[in-house]
Every structure is written in structure tokens, then in C-alpha cells.
């Protein structure tokens, strides 16, 4: 009984200090007034739920001096760093609406304004944003932030209401975002990806924002009218002057005020070098098209172009490395003098060049572009050609052998040229197995209403072909023709269905022309450098190509052409190796040894060809 009373007292005390919930969980209360030490173990009454052990807590009631914590208020103004940027200006006219009929047939689509395409205001979350990243050589924070804080290109183009003949591809916007912030840049896209369009659109934005007021485009002579046309297409509101004519006229053109863009050919820049210096001309931007023209650093062209006073230097070329790493170093003399040098390994050169060079290939960026089908047509010479060929080769080799160590590269070169010409046409009879084959192919081309380009390294060959291919309406295009005559040939070939064939020399026809409405390319003979052949092929296989492009390379069986082809195959990878920062290849180009080996002769140890 006494034990029971003790239990009751304990229970009462417990209930006073501990509040129990229906599940038996205890909450301690009123502990500030109680010095409590309880043991609940042993309580077995069914009316009192079992509770968890309670930890003893002792709260000292004696006076303790409290710690005073000082909490600072958030009232101090934070340090603010400010950056102010030059006020953008739009000095030019509002966008011009250009009639669609003025466009080239190949890109005859409706003019568009960025943002029409970008689904204005309706697709913020999914819209692509092409940002302009600051170049690696911009160090000052304020300048870097200037680029970081620019609106994306899509927004800029949409906001400027700039019209384009067609919507730029995303990789072309990337190219513009690469060019615009750079003072020195090489746009080395594979031919046909629209290097000129990217350069024009970029310089257009620079001019419109007031960052460039005087722009000079330097290009090969044959491409001047092409550039004028492209500028009219892609920057219709920009006033363009072409530097041409007699010295007095050129002097006037060089000094024309309020003309933001001038176009000159390389020869004019060389010829007017002193005049440009005397006039004290300077440019905010100089764009070199087919910039491989300055790869020879001792040439007048290299010197004259390098002497131009300029703020920005952009080089456009599909072949930044044609033969050796020195080609790239020569381009850097123009865009960033001293940044790279000849002593660098290809890997070091590639690393140093990385921030200055942008190169994309079609297979990477144009996954939806029509395919290019290559086929090598191995052609047996006609019996008459074979006889002539055999005699010429035997006599030539005998002559070279007789010369022994006195044999020069020039001697070998002459023999190669002679044999290649025989592979095209037999001099005594005029027979040509290639022509027979080409004629058969062209009949099919013409019957299907398609167009074909035929390339040769000899103007004489083009002349012969024109006569033989008259029924296909063959037209010529080569450096021996005037600019007007060449433009006329291109115009007729584009617009007149009677002309199914355009005969081009590698020299004049391999660069800059947009002939993407042609579905067939024939390489009647082979050039020495695969990069030039690629340029030729890409006249047709480029953006805007309506369908697959078939490339046929004629090779005369068991002749010098097959042997050259083997050498060319070995050269083909050099450019990619440097641009991918790889190690140097074992074989770099067509060396003296290569040339002599074509005839199984030992090289006399002279310089490379």
C-alpha cells in the first residue's frame, strides 16, 4: 500500500512536469521552477503510458552575467564598381528594303529580318543566343565586360531590323561573334561556308555601331565584282567604292569621304602603296580575302598589305596552311605581328594561333548540306596518245639521266608538264580519251538540265575544249579575259539554259565564285596542290547548293597523273595537322625528291619545289 502511494505521488509529480500526448511522447514543462530528477522505470500502471527516459536538466538559478552580443546593422553602403561604355551610334541610314528580284537565283528567297525567324517574343526560353565572348588578348576588365554585356547577336540583328537575303546559319552567327570583337583574326572556314558573308555582316555591324568608319576589303582582281555584289546583298545600306582605273581616278577613289567600304584588288594596293602613304590613309578595318596571297613574306604583296595603317586586321582564307607552317606565320604577320614565329613546332603554333583562328568544315557544321560525291575516273589513253606519251617519257627520262647531277627541278618540271599535256590531248592528232569521256558525261548533264564546271590548269586546254564542246554552249572563264568578259560569262552561264558548261582555269576560277547552282564538277587535269582543287570543287559544293554535287577527277591510267595523285594524297593532311595542334607529319609537301621520284630518279639534293 505504501508502495502504491509512492507510485501515485510519483505519477502526480510526473504529470505536473511532463505533459504526455496520446502516443506517450513527453514534453517537459515548467522546468524553470523545478529541480527535477525522476526515474519512471518500474511504473506499470496501465493508466500511465510508458514514456521515454527523461534527461535530467539543471537550470542554475543563481545570477550569471549575460554575454552581450553586438550585431552590426546592415546600413553600410557596399562598394560599387562602375563601368561606362562608349555610346553606340547608328550613323547610317535606316534599313533598306530591297526588291527580291535583285538577288542571285541561287539564293532567291525572301529577304528576312532576324527575329522574324527567331520567333520574336514567343520563344524566349528556346531561342538560340550567340554571345560575343571577349578575345583572349583583351585583358582590361572594363573592355572584357564591354563584350560580355553586349546583347546576343540574334537580339542585335533583330533590334537593328537589318535585312538579309537569307537567314544566316547558326555557325555563321558564331563566325560573326568571333570576328566582331577581334582586332586580329583569321576566318579559315572550308570553302563554301560563307566567309565573305560572315565578314560583310560583321563589318556591317561594326560600321552601324560606329566602331568602324573606314573599311578596306582587299581581294584578288577577279573577285572584285563578286565582292561588290556580295556587299550589295548582305549590306545594302553601305556605300561601297571600288578602287580601279587610272592613277588619277584611283587617287580620287582612295580619298572619297563618307564611303565606309572600299574594295581594292591586291595589285592596286601594291601599285598605290606610295600614294596610300602619301595620302596618310588609315583604316579602321582591313579585310584580306584569299589571304593566302600574302603567304610569301618577301613578296611586294605581303609588304604592301602589311604597310597599310589599320586598327583591325581580318584574313579570310580556306587554306591557311597550303604547303607549310610558314604560310600561317605569314598570315600572322598581318593579323598579329610577332605573335608566332617559324621556330615553333606545329603543336606550339597551333596553340598560339588558337584564339585567332576559326576554322569549320562542312561535315561538322552543315550536316544537312547536300552530299559531295567524289569519283576518280581512270581513263586509258587512246593508242595514239599512248604512243606519243611513251616516246615523250622515254626521251625525257633519258635526257634527265644524261644530265645526271646537273638535272634541275626545272628540267623535271618541264617534263611533267609535257606529259600532262599529252594526257589531255595528243599533240599530233588532237585525240583525247578524256574529252571522249567528258563529252559522254556532259550529254547526260545537259539532258537532265543541269550545269557543269570543268577545270584545267591550261588556258590552251580550255580553248580546245570550248571548240569541242560547243554543242553544250561551253563558256570560258580564265585570267586572260577582262573582268567585264568574265562577269559576262558568269552571267550567261547562270541565266541562259543553253549554256550547260563553264570551262575554268584553276587560277581564276578556283576562288571566290559562287556557282552553287552547278551540280557537276570535272577536274580535267590535276593541280599541284590539293587545297586549290578543293577550292575549285567548292565553287559548286557550297551553301545554297540545290542538290548533291558530283566531282569527277580524270586520271590517265599508268601515267604521270597517277603518280602525282599519290603525292597529292600524302600532302592533303598537313593543314589539318597544324590546325589541330598535332605533331608534324613526316612528309610535308611536294619536295624535290618527290618530283624526281616521279621518274624514279635520285634527287640531286636541291631545294623543294
Amino acid at each position, binding site marked *: 500500500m505504501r508502495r502504491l502511494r509512492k507510485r501515485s505521488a510519483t505519477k502526480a509529480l510526473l504529470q505536473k512536469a511532463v505533459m504526455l500526448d496520446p502516443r506517450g511522447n513527453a514534453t517537459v514543462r515548467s522546468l524553470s521552477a523545478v529541480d527535477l530528477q525522476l526515474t519512471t522505470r518500474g511504473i506499470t500502471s496501465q493508466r500511465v503510458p510508458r514514456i521515454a527516459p527523461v534527461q535530467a536538466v539543471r537550470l542554475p538559478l543563481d545570477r550569471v552575467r549575460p554575454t552581450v552580443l553586438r550585431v552590426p546593422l546592415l546600413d553600410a553602403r557596399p562598394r*560599387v564598381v562602375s563601368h561606362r*561604355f562608349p555610346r553606340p551610334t547608328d550613323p547610317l541610314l535606316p534599313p533598306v528594303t530591297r526588291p527580291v528580284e535583285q538577288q542571285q537565283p541561287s539564293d532567291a528567297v525572301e529577304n528576312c529580318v532576324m527575329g522574324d525567324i527567331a520567333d520574336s*517574343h*514567343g520563344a*524566349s526560353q528556346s531561342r538560340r543566343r550567340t554571345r560575343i565572348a571577349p578575345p583572349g588578348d583583351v585583358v582590361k576588365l572594363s573592355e572584357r565586360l564591354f563584350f*560580355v*554585356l553586349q*546583347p546576343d547577336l540574334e*537580339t*542585335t540583328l533583330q533590334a537593328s531590323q537589318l535585312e538579309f537575303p537569307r537567314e544566316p546559319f547558326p555557325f555563321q552567327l558564331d563566325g560573326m561573334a568571333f570576328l566582331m570583337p577581334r582586332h586580329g583574326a583569321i576566318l579559315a572556314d572550308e570553302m563554301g561556308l560563307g566567309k565573305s558573308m560572315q565578314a560583310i555582316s560583321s563589318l556591317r555591324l561594326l560600321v552601324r555601331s560606329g566602331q568602324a568608319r573606314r573599311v578596306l576589303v582587299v581581294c584578288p582582281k577577279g573577285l572584285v565584282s563578286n565582292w561588290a555584289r556580295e556587299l550589295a546583298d548582305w549590306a545594302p545600306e553601305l556605300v561601297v567604292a571600288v578602287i580601279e582605273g587610272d592613277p588619277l581616278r584611283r587617287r580620287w577613289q582612295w580619298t572619297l569621304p563618307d564611303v565606309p567600304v572600299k574594295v581594292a584588288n591586291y595589285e592596286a594596293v601594291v601599285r598605290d602603296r606610295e600614294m596610300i602613304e602619301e595620302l596618310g590613309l588609315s583604316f579602321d578595318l582591313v579585310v584580306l580575302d584569299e589571304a593566302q596571297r600574302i603567304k610569301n613574306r618577301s613578296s611586294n604583296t605581303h609588304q604592301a598589305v602589311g604597310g597599310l595603317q589599320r586598327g583591325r586586321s581580318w584574313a579570310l582564307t580556306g587554306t591557311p596552311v597550303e604547303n607549310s607552317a610558314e604560310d600561317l606565320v605569314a598570315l600572322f604577320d598581318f593579323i598579329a605581328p610577332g605573335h608566332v614565329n617559324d621556330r615553333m613546332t606545329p603543336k606550339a603554333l597551333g596553340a598560339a594561333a588558337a584564339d585567332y583562328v576559326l576554322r569549320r568544315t562542312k561535315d561538322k557544321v552543315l550536316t544537312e548540306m547536300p552530299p559531295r560525291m567524289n569519283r576518280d575516273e581512270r581513263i586509258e589513253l587512246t593508242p595514239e596518245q599512248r604512243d606519243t606519251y611513251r616516246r615523250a617519257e622515254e626521251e625525257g627520262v633519258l635526257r634527265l639521266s644524261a644530265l645526271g647531277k646537273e638535272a634541275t627541278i626545272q628540267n623535271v618540271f618541264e617534263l611533267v608538264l609535257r606529259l600532262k599535256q599529252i594526257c589531255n590531248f595528243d599533240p599530233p592528232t588532237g585525240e583525247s580519251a578524256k574529252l571522249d569521256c567528258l563529252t559522254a558525261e556532259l550529254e547526260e548533264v545537259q539532258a537532265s538540265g543541269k550545269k557543269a564546271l570543268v577545270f584545267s590548269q591550261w588556258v590552251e586546254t580550255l580553248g580546245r575544249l570550248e571548240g569541242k564542246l560547243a554543242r553544250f554552249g561551253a563558256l570560258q572563264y580564265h585570267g586572260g579575259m577582262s573582268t567585264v568578259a568574265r562577269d559576262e560569262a558568269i552571267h550567261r552561264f547562270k541565266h541562259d539554259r543553253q549554256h550547260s558548261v563553264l570551262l575554268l582555269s584553276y587560277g581564276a576560277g578556283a576562288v571566290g565564285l559562287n556557282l552553287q547552282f552547278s551540280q557537276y564538277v570535272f577536274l580535267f587535269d590535276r593541280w599541284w596542290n590539293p587545297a586549290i582543287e578543293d577550292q575549285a570543287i567548292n565553287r559548286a559544293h557550297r551553301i545554297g547548293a540545290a542538290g548533291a554535287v558530283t566531282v569527277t577527277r580524270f586520271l590517265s591510267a599508268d601515267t604521270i597523273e597517277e603518280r602525282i595523285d599519290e603525292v597529292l594524297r600524302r600532302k592533303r593532311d598537313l593543314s589539318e595537322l597544324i590546325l589541330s595542334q598535332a605533331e608534324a607529319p613526316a612528309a610535308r609537301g611536294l619536295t624535290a625528291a618527290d618530283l624526281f621520284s616521279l621518274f624514279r630518279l635520285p634527287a640531286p639534293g636541291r631545294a623543294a619545289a
Partner: protein
Amino acid sequence: MEQQTQGATVFGFLTALDSPTHGVFGGYLVVDAIGRPIEFHCTAPVKVSRAQQILYGASLPGHLHGQQIGAALLAEGSVTPIVVLTDHNAMLSVRQHTPLPVALVGLRSEAAEPPPGVFAMGDVYVCPPAGSADDTDALRQHLDHLRVAVDLTEPFERIRAAIEEAQRH
């Protein structure tokens, strides 16, 4: 804040970037009518202690973002925007420290009906702070012009990228 000097219409974009290690960075970008940058101001990071969090309680975000960071940034501007937009709710309280119309903007959810006082412009909602209903007409008018050229939520991406760039530098 100085008066606008060149007369061209400019717009302010104000936001904050919370860094777990550094604290809160404030960023303020002034752009022209087609989104090109005119000025950029950013604060050194403000770190709030646990004690300050307890002391300020629910008033902390508004005080920190609106008064301490937002007002300090607006005071640095040498040109006066016609509106100030933010994508940070707490920044809205900067309205108490500026005569300029201020609004919160964000991508609009198709499903959700905008609450009272919030209006939509394309795929973006615009929300003036409570008690600033008078700003609504001005906001509508000004933003209607700006949104033709600029996605109203895009400049905040630039501010955050710029703060990150400044931290790397």
C-alpha cells in the same frame, strides 16, 4: 543620380547574384533602346551573418536587396532610365528609394493565371511592387517599346555573366 545627359531613352536592369562563398553581389545594367550596354555597376559582395538574419528576420531580403544593394547601385548611374526591371523579388523594395517605376519580370507560365496587379507582355509577366499600381501605365507604355527589340529577361543573363567575369578577373 545625375540627370540623363544625352536625351536617349535608356532602361535599367537590376539583379543580385547569391554566392555561397562570397555573399550577395548586386548588378545594375543600363541599356539603350535596342539592348546595347551604356553602363554597368556592380557591388562588392555583401555577406550577412546568422545574427543579422535573426535580427532582421523577414525584413532582411527587402532591406538587403532593396535598400543596401539596389539603392546604392541606382545612385551610381550617370544616366536615368525610364524604368528599372528586376528578376529578383526582394529587389522590388528598391522602389521605396527611387522615384522610377520598378517592376519584377519573369517568364510567364502558360498555365498560371497572373495574379492581380501583374500583367503580361508576350511571354513575360510584369509585376510592379505592392502599392505602386500607379506605375502600371508607365511600365506598359515603356516596355512595349523595349520588348520589340529586347527579350525583357535576357539582360539579367548578361549581368550575371559580367559579375562572374569580374570575379574571375
